[in-house]
């Protein structure tokens, strides 16, 4: 009897193990192993041809060189601004889809949010360039309408980068917001209204507290995507973009300084982890609860 039970349990564990194996392999081979290698890289210094010693020189360079610092902080701030703008724009959209329209219209609106993602990010960003460059659609239109005397260059501004980042991130904010707003019972809104709350008080005391996990989830995803984005800032910001991922690219590809690039990669990882933790702390949310919402 006892041995049969033991065998059954052993079979159960084997089954679970086999089911998890692909995920574990995936995580191990593609995420954990490369990161271990990068960590090792970031903590060594080249002292001669094929001669390396363990050192903190890569991290020291980052802290001593103002340019790197500047780009690092700028990337973080711009990402925060982009995340906030995305939230501001996505919230009304999610509200309309989740609460105001029903049935087919709501599905249609959701598809409208999805459609831009059928095109690759590169093509989408190039589309923005066609619209915004000096000889592009929008500057020409502005001249024709008599708003500007000569075509203005709309590319390569910080605002342009933000527009591109918000556009790219929108869907990832809208989805968790819709799911958290849909679960809000309309009777709660009516009850608050009935008890004397105005529109803003309902938003502040009922809607936002209820949607907090969805808002946090959306912000985390959008912030991570924005912070780690390479294509959009580079194409829309040109030389002015000064995005930290660009620095990493430069170290790895242009300078062939893998050690420095690896250190930058780890600094970016630390930054995004710290910001997510801070965000969770501010929103008073737990990571597990939030991730269930995405």
């Amino acid at each position, binding site marked *: 009897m006892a041995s049969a039970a033991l065998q059954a349990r052993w079979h159960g564990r084997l089954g679970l193990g086999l089911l998890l194996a692909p995920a574990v392999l995936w995580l191990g081979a593609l995420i954990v192993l490369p990161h271990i290698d990068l960590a090792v890289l970031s903590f060594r210094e080249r002292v001669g041809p094929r001669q390396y010693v363990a050192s903190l020189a890569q991290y020291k360079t980052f802290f001593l060189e103002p340019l790197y610092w500047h780009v690092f902080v700028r990337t973080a701030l711009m990402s925060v601004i982009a995340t906030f703008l995305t939230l501001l724009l996505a919230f009304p959209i999610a509200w309309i889809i989740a609460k105001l329209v029903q049935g087919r219209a709501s599905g249609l609106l959701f598809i409208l949010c999805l459609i831009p993602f059928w095109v690759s990010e590169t093509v989408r960003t190039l589309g923005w360039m066609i619209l915004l460059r000096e000889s592009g659609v929008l500057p020409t239109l502005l001249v024709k309408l008599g708003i500007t005397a000569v075509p203005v260059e709309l590319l390569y501004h910080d605002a342009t980068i933000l527009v591109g980042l918000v556009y790219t991130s929108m869907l990832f904010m809208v989805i968790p917001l819709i799911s958290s707003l849909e679960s809000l*019972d309309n*009777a*709660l809104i*009516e*009850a*608050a*209204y*009935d*008890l*004397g*709350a*105005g529109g803003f*008080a309902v938003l502040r*005391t*009922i809607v936002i*507290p*209820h949607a907090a996990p969805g808002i946090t989830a959306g912000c985390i995803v959008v912030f991570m995507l924005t912070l780690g984005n390479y294509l959009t800032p580079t194409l829309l910001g040109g030389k002015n973009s000064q995005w930290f991922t660009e620095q990493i690219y430069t170290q790895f590809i242009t300078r062939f300084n893998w050690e420095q690039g690896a250190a930058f990669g780890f600094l970016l990882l630390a930054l995004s982890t710290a910001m997510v933790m801070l965000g969770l702390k501010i929103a008073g949310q737990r990571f597990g609860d939030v991730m269930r919402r995405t």
Partner: protein
Amino acid sequence: MSAADLIADAVVKRFGEHVAVDSLSFSVAHGSFFSILGPSGCGKTTLLRMIAGFIAPDGGDIAIGGRSMRGVAPNRRPVNMVFQQLALFPMMSVGENVAYGLARRGVARAQRMQRSEAMLERVGLGGAAAKRVDELSGGQRQRVAIARSLVLEPTLLLLDEPLGALDLKLREHMKIELKQLQAAFGTTFVYITHDQSEALVLSDHVGVMSHGRFEQLGTPQDLYYRPQTPFVASFVGANNRIVGRVASVQGASVEMTTKDGWTIHALKQGALAVGDAVEGFVRPEVASLGRVAAELPAGQPRHEGEVQSLLFDGANSAVLLKELRTRREFRIALPQTGQFSDLRPQEKVQFSFDPERAVCFPARAAAAGQDG
């Protein structure tokens, strides 16, 4: 009767072609418990939502506390509502729920917490302010929902079938509690329900609603003993319904005969002439039962029946008979003495009822063709 807290004047609401509330006028006296009773889809929820201000009437006017509510938003009306699913705020503590309306009015934090505590005390939930809403039982949540509204001292408290979600035992208990709360606070309650027993037990006045109109408006006793329409007679309380035609009229009394020839006597309600299609109603407790004719009250027309089944339900026990010749069902309440507890199916019995306590209406259009 003191001044009316709620006056509805020819209130109309249409949804497309459908008239949900059809030119309804009534008033509710200060401090009274008024119920709107009707089956689902009769327009009672629409009416309640118009009083609360969530939807605007297409015609007519609603006045609360003597002031017209036209164009007044729900958050500015002296009315609060207890929602069907209660709609307590899960993101707040019990105390914060009760203090919510006070906070919206700008009452200082310390003062609103104190008032919310005091209100919870009054509804028997003293010390529960710090609890989470989901830590409370169904009945306690009910009381929080009522406290949350009453703390604002509204002119009118609206209740939208608040007992619907509770189980039977708790529902019976909450019925009594609601009545006591209303008496203690003296606030005017407007209560909507599809449960006739809730309406009868709780209310001072009841409006029975069907197809957007009041079929009858009166005290629970009026509705039960003196129904004005066949709808009220069949909807309020149990009733035996017998469909037939008028055989003869003598003053206030009518002799009616069913299609298959069973004759009964009843009081007439409305104008009736010989040959008119009618619906007669006899309450189960009005009829008497006997094994032999001598057991029946003297002077009442006798009928013969065969026991079909005994419906034992404690004090509400009844016997289901078939009239011997026409095989029509007839329900009679059993006396509390247990006198007929040994009745057996297929047993032949006699029964009778006082024609003065049976009532007969002109048949409704929908009922005229059928033969109950």
